[in-house]
């Protein structure tokens, strides 16, 4: 399996006032294509900083980050914006959908910034394809405020997929959802990971959510403390089948 993410001695230092905060103190990590990596750790462990750098939202103070073999650690802001658009799909805790905007328009948004001269019909087709992949093709015309939390998160997942990125980066995607909906969202991630082979990186502080991944990396004080394959992986599809049908 080819390596998607390769990180070597990654250091990130923030200067807050006169105090230097070392958020990352030398992280080495490799992620192969098709992995489902869970990143855990308490707050202040550096996992958020790690996610920002992996997501090309921020640049490391020192160290190297190869994404698909391309060194992105020294790129300009505009180059990083293009990388984010093409190679990374973000899913956030707060969904971050545009209000008063249809699901379809929300999903199309990354296409507006990336593909130059893509025809409207082509954009619609691609957006509908990914909405179908998350099971929301019937809700394409619904505005985001007309959708439930789980549906909104699925729209957000569809949006992250529309540009066929190399990695799917989910930051506490179940933080605002109840247990059943959380499992439903995890089922989508697992399905996408298994069926399309997309690399998923899941940032979470919930240990049981982390167990849906194939591998768990734990952060503490800016370094990786554990890195192990999940021997007893939770499978969302089986759990959903075992759960009683929703009463409503």
């Amino acid at each position, binding site marked *: 399996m080819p390596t998607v993410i390769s990180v070597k001695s990654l250091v990130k230092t923030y200067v807050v006032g006169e105090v230097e905060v070392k958020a990352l103190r030398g992280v080495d990590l490799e992620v192969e294509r098709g992995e489902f990596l869970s990143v855990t750790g308490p707050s202040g462990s550096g996992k958020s900083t790690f996610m920002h750098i992996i997501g090309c939202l921020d640049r490391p103070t020192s160290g190297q980050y190869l994404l698909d073999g391309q060194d992105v650690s020294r790129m300009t802001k505009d180059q990083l914006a293009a990388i984010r658009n093409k190679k990374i799909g973000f899913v956030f805790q707060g969904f971050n959908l545009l209000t008063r905007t249809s699901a379809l328009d929300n999903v199309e948004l990354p296409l507006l910034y990336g593909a130059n*001269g893509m025809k409207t019909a082509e954009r619609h087709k691609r957006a509908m394809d990914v909405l179908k992949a998350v099971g929301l093709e019937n809700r394409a015309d619904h505005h985001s405020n007309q959708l439930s939390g789980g549906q909104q998160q699925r729209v957000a997942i569809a949006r992250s997929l529309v540009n066929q990125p190399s990695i799917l980066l989910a930051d506490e995607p179940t933080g605002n959802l109840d247990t059943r909906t959380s499992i439903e969202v995890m089922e989508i991630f697992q399905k996408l990971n298994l069926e399309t082979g997309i690399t998923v990186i899941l940032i979470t502080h919930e240990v049981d959510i982390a167990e849906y991944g194939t591998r768990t990396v734990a952060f503490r004080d800016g370094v990786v403390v554990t890195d192990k394959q999940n021997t007893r992986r939770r499978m969302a599809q089986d759990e959903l089948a075992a759960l009683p049908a929703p009463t409503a």
Partner: protein
Amino acid sequence: MSVFMIIRIAFKALSRNKMRTALTMLGMIIGVAAVITMVALGTGAQTSIDAAVQSAGTNTVIVSAGNFTQGGVRQGQGNASTLIPDDAVAISQLPGILYTAAGSSTRAQMVAGNQNWNTQAQGTDVDLPLINAWPVDDGSFFTTQDVTQAAKVVVLGTVVRDQLFGTDSEPVGQVIQIQHQPFTVVGVMASKGQSSMGQDRDDTVFIPYTTVMKKMRGVTFINNVTVAAAEASQVTAVADRIATLLRVRHKIAPGDPDDFMVRTIEEMASVRKEATQTMTALLASIAGVSLLVGGIGIMNIMLVSVTERTREIGLRMAIGARGRDVLLQFLVEAIVLSLFGGGIGIALGFGVAQGVTLWQGWPTAVSPNAVFLAFGFAAATGVFFGFYPAQKAAALDPIDALRFE
């Protein structure tokens, strides 16, 4: 990312909050409409002056006796005794002159039966209707013979006719008393309406100038000579010739000031036009202030909008928008706001100008210049006041923006 896409994105963003968009535009709408209306009123006034000049005859030259300053003594024009009927005859023989009419006027009380009316009695010559393109409606103008004989005949303006004999009466042949002397009515002029000075030109009577001189004022001089040049292009040359002739006839030494004034209708109108232009500029600049306020309103809303949509900006950046894209989006939003506001404002300004014409009877003319100016100003306002908020949006850090609550 194409500009077309950015415009699409801006439209979508604006349509997401229609009420706010409409209110923001309102400032721009009112500002542009005010400018358009004010300039339309000013242009209308100028157009009506031009029309008045046309109807008075662009080739008209007026010679008045006296000058504003003469030998250090200020005199009212037309009151000097230096201009005599022979001067008018001499002027009429100059080349390039079509018609000449000597003038001698006085205010007088006129009585017909039990009605009386005080008005301007204009002593003039037979060619005046031709010079002013002002036809006689009923009867005829007085004749050369009337002038030579200083006959007691009168041609009434419609207002005087209405006052003395009643509306739509036919007083030709009747006799009226002017300064206790009987005058026979030989004609009634067509209605001419207001002059560019706002005077009612129909409130007058015409009498042979010789009659006014000899039988009403008892003087040997005239007040003025109205001259029509043969060609409008020769007006200035004709005016110069008249001045030269009169200086010779009045034996004015070189270097001494004229004891008369030669003015063309266009000169007189241009003074008034300048006053109107100043007024228009004043009104338009006051309206311009409201445009400025509209622009500041747009900046205010855009700044609020940037703060309110911080997470949206963060998201757009996370999914690949560059700083430039965000800058352009907000800039285009501001420009769209001001251009749409400007467009609606132009339409509203048109409407208000039409309304003023309809209900107030004031002449208005919406000039293309004013439209371009207002539209250009609206666009410039959008760019100018939209840039700062847009730059603020583009400078946001995506991580901070995404975390913003």
